[in-house]
């Protein structure tokens, strides 16, 4: 089994991000299940999703070390997606 020796190849950031992603998923799930309806909760759940995809992009796709325009475009996407979906949810 490739076990512990494989961990050598996980950049610390990526490993930490993964833990945060797992935790955030469980938090969203709990929020969604227990607090069903309610505008604030939905906006929060969408925000958590936006933060999660940001981490995937920055630490898994390695955008943290990408040229600034690319990174800015990606972060803009995360923010824009959250804003658009929250806006559509709240105002339609």
């Amino acid at each position, binding site marked *: 089994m490739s076990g512990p020796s494989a961990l050598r190849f*996980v950049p610390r950031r990526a490993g930490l991000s993964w833990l945060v992603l797992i935790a955030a998923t469980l938090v969203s799930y709990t929020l969604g299940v227990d607090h069903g309806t309610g505008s604030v909760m939905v906006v929060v759940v*969408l925000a958590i999703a936006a933060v999660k995809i940001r981490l995937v992009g920055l630490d898994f796709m390695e955008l943290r070390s990408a040229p600034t325009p690319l990174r800015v475009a990606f972060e803009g*996407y995360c923010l824009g997606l959250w804003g658009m979906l929250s806006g559509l949810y709240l105002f339609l």
Partner: protein
Amino acid sequence: MTVSAPAALAPTRRIPGEQGTWVFLFGDMLVFGAFFATFMVERAKAPEVFDVSRKTLHLGVGLVNTLVLLTSSLLVVVALGALRSGARFIAARAVALAMFCGGLFIALKVYEYTSLVADGHGIGANHFYLYYFILTGVHLFHVCVGVGVLAFLLTQTRRRELSETRMAVVEGGTCFWHLVDLLWIVLFPLLYLVA
């Protein structure tokens, strides 16, 4: 004990993959953004129907699928790091495991689909299910393509040396897998949790 990837101390900024990779990835992200928005607009036309239908979904399976994809992405990160350091055996194992995760996702999705249809919640049942099946269906297609891309990455782990262009294609392939993960991270709350 984890260490940073080799040569990560050089602060030069580089595009993951190549330019064209991001033409594709951003293109896909934008189109899915349009898909997500369309879902929200449709939802606003019949929020009660959407909410009632949403609750018939298998929340637990959706959660497991999210965790499975997140883990597969980590495995792909391991594979890339190993490949860059020449640890081809570990890279191959990690890619194979990621492919297994992809297969698991597909199997769970098939289970979800058949179970929903059996309960009378097929694609034509109402607008929620229509969008549910279409959105997750298009995503599932991406997962299948992604598994194909991982299979290609597996063949690349057998090469003793990868040229710069080939390495860029490999990196692009890993980014595509992360995209598949990313899209599901949005789809899961959108379909299963938004009340």
